[in-house]
């Protein structure tokens, strides 16, 4: 019989926590820089573009990993509604992680802005297209933040209330030497 993993692959866990930190930083940087007009605005904007590009590369690796490496199943006793909610929220998170940097890149292209690192324009210079993408970038950031909150809340309920091993399957620390019946 093939063994079912009890935890995510170490590389998947590393990517998860690295991206978790970067995405939260990105959301806070993004939302604060647009209402800021001090010199901080200038360097936050550069930081936002740099982290955005890093996140785009990371999410591509992560999608490949997710599709190729087996991951632990949800607990068998989890109600169907929660199972569906978990699936939908993960799909939404992956979708947004991929879409946000691409929209950012496309939006700068459509706005006629020069791109960092001589990246090619993704889209033609078009003011109306820019408007749509710029607004989508803002609204989807709020959706992403809300989804992150739900995701975090659910993870903590798994870890602290249900205590079903789901949170520990994404532990940032190495799990190899621990017993399967470790306490959460």
């Amino acid at each position, binding site marked *: 019989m093939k063994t079912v993993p009890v935890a995510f692959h170490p590389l998947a866990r590393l990517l998860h926590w690295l991206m978790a930190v970067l995405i939260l930083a990105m*959301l*806070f940087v993004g*939302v*604060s820089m*647009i*209402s*800021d*007009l*001090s*010199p*901080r*605005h*200038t360097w936050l904007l550069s930081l936002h573009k740099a982290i955005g590009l890093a996140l785009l590369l990371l999410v591509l690796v992560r999608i490949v990993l997710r599709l190729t490496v087996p991951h632990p199943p949800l607990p068998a006793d989890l109600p169907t509604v929660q199972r569906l909610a978990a699936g939908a929220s993960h799909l939404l998170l992956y979708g947004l992680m991929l879409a946000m940097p691409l929209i950012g890149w496309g939006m700068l292209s459509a*706005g*006629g*802005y*020069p791109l960092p690192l*001589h990246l090619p324009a993704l889209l033609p*210079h*078009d*003011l*109306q297209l*820019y*408007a*749509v993408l*710029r*607004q989508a970038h803002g609204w989807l950031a709020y959706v992403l*933040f809300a989804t992150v*909150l739900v995701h*975090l*809340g659910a993870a*903590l*309920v798994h870890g*602290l*209330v*249900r*205590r*079903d*091993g789901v949170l520990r399957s994404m532990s940032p620390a190495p799990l190899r030497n621990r017993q399967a*019946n470790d*306490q*959460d």
Partner: protein
Amino acid sequence: MSTPLHGRPRALRLAAIGLGLSALAAGFAYAAGWIGSERLTPKRIIDTFEAQAGHYPGYRKNHAKGLCVSGYFLSSNQAASLSRARVFSQQRVQVIGRFAIGGSNPYSADTSVPTRSLALQLSSDDGQVWRTGMNTPPVLAVNTPEAFYQQVLAMTPAPATGKPDPARVQAFFAAHPESAAFRQWAKDYKAPDSFANSSFNSINAFALVDDAGNRQYVRWSLLPQTPFAALQGQVDDRDYLQHDLQQRLRQGPLRWTLRLTLAQAADAVDDPSQPWPAERRSVDAGTLVIEQVDGPEQGACRDLNFDPLILPSGIEPSADPILAARSAAYAESFNRRSREAAQLGARP
């Protein structure tokens, strides 16, 4: 694996989780400026422009009335030792630009507004872009975004006269002694009768960076090669400067010298209200040649944000807070008019 919690411990942990998430959400709201003390934002500045001048969908929210032009920049190679930016060594650099008058009303009469501006985009052959927005005054009246905002408020047109209340303006200047150089300039200023013989100034300072990484702070000016002629008192044509520019360009190209003024160690590089001593060394970096003009608010310049912080490698911003605020406010104006274009089809 431990058993799920029930009863009181479960309720306590759920409450703690709820509290943690709320704290994170509150932090986000604070970072966004939705809660906490009121602060000056790009949005508030642009709102104030629109409140004073009126709402003109699709137009730039300041320097709303202008014309797109195009031409090229002929580098003299004189500044190539100061900056590694390709524009200072490439022989001929493609230029898109925009002449405008100050203010947020795109229907103002050209000669009713003292401030004129020239925004440029220089695209060098290494793929880099330099955008700069220049104005007729060499200095600003203020040196912080907050004081700039107070100045805008002080200039609010009085309902009765349609002009700023002189007492309020005087009170503002009295409270801002840093405006002395600007007031002196305004007193001495004789408006030229054309964009072609107007000078335009970067106002803010920037650092030129050479191949070795040495930094030299500069301000730049475009000095007209067209001789000065004073604007005559009574002008009936509301689009006088636009018609004049079109007519002159039918005769032939117009030229300006790009002059870099080099700061010395003690000069105020982060304060746009302070002029530098007149004897500062300057370098003529090249000649701007404008050869073509488009119809009002049409052409390649229309859908560009002339953000003064779009700089090529070899030119860097100073720490001047006004420069950062200009960049932030231009972005807000650009976003707003792009939305108006998309939602209302509003185009100048």
